[in-house]
């Protein structure tokens, strides 16, 4: 059940260029893949909350990882430890956990945010976690040290070759799929997700993608955040905020 809660910032650190990690003083009992709507200003401008994935949650408090890109997230970036933020969440469906003994997680850029919490959860459920992380260049490859023990494999790829594989992360994905078709979870730019779903389909691997959409309510009431889905008979719009943000790959890309 989503709640509206005022929380206090415990830590707020710049962990990579433009990327910040915010640790809050309370948990919201979220599942991996769920998100929150965070209020970035106490005034009427910017007007809307901003959707941010749960990067981690539990006893240590809720953790967010975000890129200060636009006006709202840049305002958020100015907050200091001790400041309060207003959080609505947990929202959305979250990643499904299958029976498979292993999973491949494909992160693109800031799409790494929700996948870290998923990685920890899968590992703690006794599964092997293959974590593939692509970004434009090396300095965007931020992965918290605390996460690495949960990963069976961590491979990176960069567009400019400044770290890991030189090329799209989906090329690395293909190598791992050749070893066995396990569920593939992805979060990142749409182009990456499309490629990921296409590659996985060749190996009959199930895919789950976490999508982004412009949101107003975040709870399913405004019908603003819809994505076209291709289920059963023809097209239909589903709400990214409650029917998603996680969809199975074939549902949204074809």
């Amino acid at each position, binding site marked *: 059940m989503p709640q*509206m809660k005022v929380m206090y910032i415990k830590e707020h650190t710049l962990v990579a260029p433009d990327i910040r990690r915010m640790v809050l003083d309370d948990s919201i009992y979220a599942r991996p893949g769920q998100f929150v709507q965070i209020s970035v200003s106490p005034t009427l401008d910017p007007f809307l909350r901003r959707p941010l994935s749960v990067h981690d949650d539990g006893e240590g408090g809720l953790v967010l990882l975000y890129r200060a890109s636009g006006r709202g997230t840049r305002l958020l970036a100015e907050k200091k430890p001790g400041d309060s933020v207003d959080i609505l969440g947990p929202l959305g469906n979250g990643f499904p956990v299958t029976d498979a003994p292993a999973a491949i997680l494909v992160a693109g850029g800031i799409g790494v945010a929700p996948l870290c919490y998923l990685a920890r959860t899968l590992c703690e459920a006794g599964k092997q976690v293959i974590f593939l992380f692509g970004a434009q260049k090396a300095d965007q490859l931020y992965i918290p040290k605390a996460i690495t023990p949960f990963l069976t494999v961590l491979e990176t790829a960069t567009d400019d070759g400044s770290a890991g594989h030189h090329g799209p992360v989906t090329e690395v994905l293909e190598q791992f799929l050749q070893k066995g078709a396990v569920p593939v979870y992805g979060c990142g730019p749409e182009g990456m997700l499309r490629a990921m779903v296409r590659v996985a389909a060749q190996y009959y691997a199930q895919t789950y993608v976490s999508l982004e959409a412009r949101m107003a309510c975040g709870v399913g009431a405004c019908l603003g955040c819809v994505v076209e889905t291709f289920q059963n008979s023809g097209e239909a*719009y589903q709400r990214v905020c409650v029917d998603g943000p996680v969809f199975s790959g074939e549902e949204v890309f074809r």
Partner: protein
Amino acid sequence: MNPDLTVNIGRLTMQNPVMPASGCFGYGEEYAPFFDLSRLGAIVVKGTTAEPCSGNHPVRLAETPAGLLNAIGLQNPGVKAAREKIRELAHCGVPVIVNVAGHSAEDYLRVIDFLEEEEEAAAYEVNISCPNVSAGGMAFGTEPCVVESLVGNLRRSTKKTLIVKLSPNVTDITEIARAAESAGADAVSLINTLLGMAIDTATRRPVLANITGGLSGPAIKPVALRMVWQVSSAVKIPVIGMGGITGARDALEFLLAGASAVAIGAANFTNPMVCPETVDGIADYLSENGFESVSRIVGLAKESLRPVTGGVCGCGKK
């Protein structure tokens, strides 16, 4: 003593003057986790059409300064499926007002015919003002004679409370309000969204797939308030005011301007508790200022402008 918050709109009695606006509260279920829905005066559900409607292509939303553009475009499951949701919602013990939409006069009639025997549909709000559909919608709401004929038809088809929702995208909204009144509407509600747009300078394209959308939120409050002021002087039927309300102070401005009740739209998105908070805030204001009922303050900002005749002082103006 607690002030009396009761409001009557046609045959509909509401325990307080606050309701979520159409399209901004789903069918209530999304906000049930946040508060007890029976605290509301009423609930207005999403624009309902005779047949299911898939709405506009995304992108459907754009944030603007202190506001929000939307181009949802009447996505709804159609009146048949909506009826089930309305029944469930009515179980919460709050009157449900059905926002009726269509692409033709015929469409509106079909929705009303379907729901007329349903006790759970307490009233209709006829949306002649949606800017986000190509045919119908706003097109109906800008010509007094068209409004009069449409509303007249609906009036003959229903005994329920009939509210007509007005578009602000007109030269003279009082003209449209009077047309609705003379055709037999029990009340008017205003304002629907202002037609607006946004352009993304990076892609050099409109942000919304629909190009234009409806502007709501605090940005439009001054325009909405002015229209409520004008319309409540032009008609005798009650006015339901809305447009940019974010709490009790805004709601009180509308009541003082002449609205008998208020609806809250976009602010639900930023604060899911805004409706009950507004109810409480209105009650507090009435108590603190010694008003025994909310009806005492409706239009009060106009009274104060009336020159005191035969009294102690002049009108304060030279």
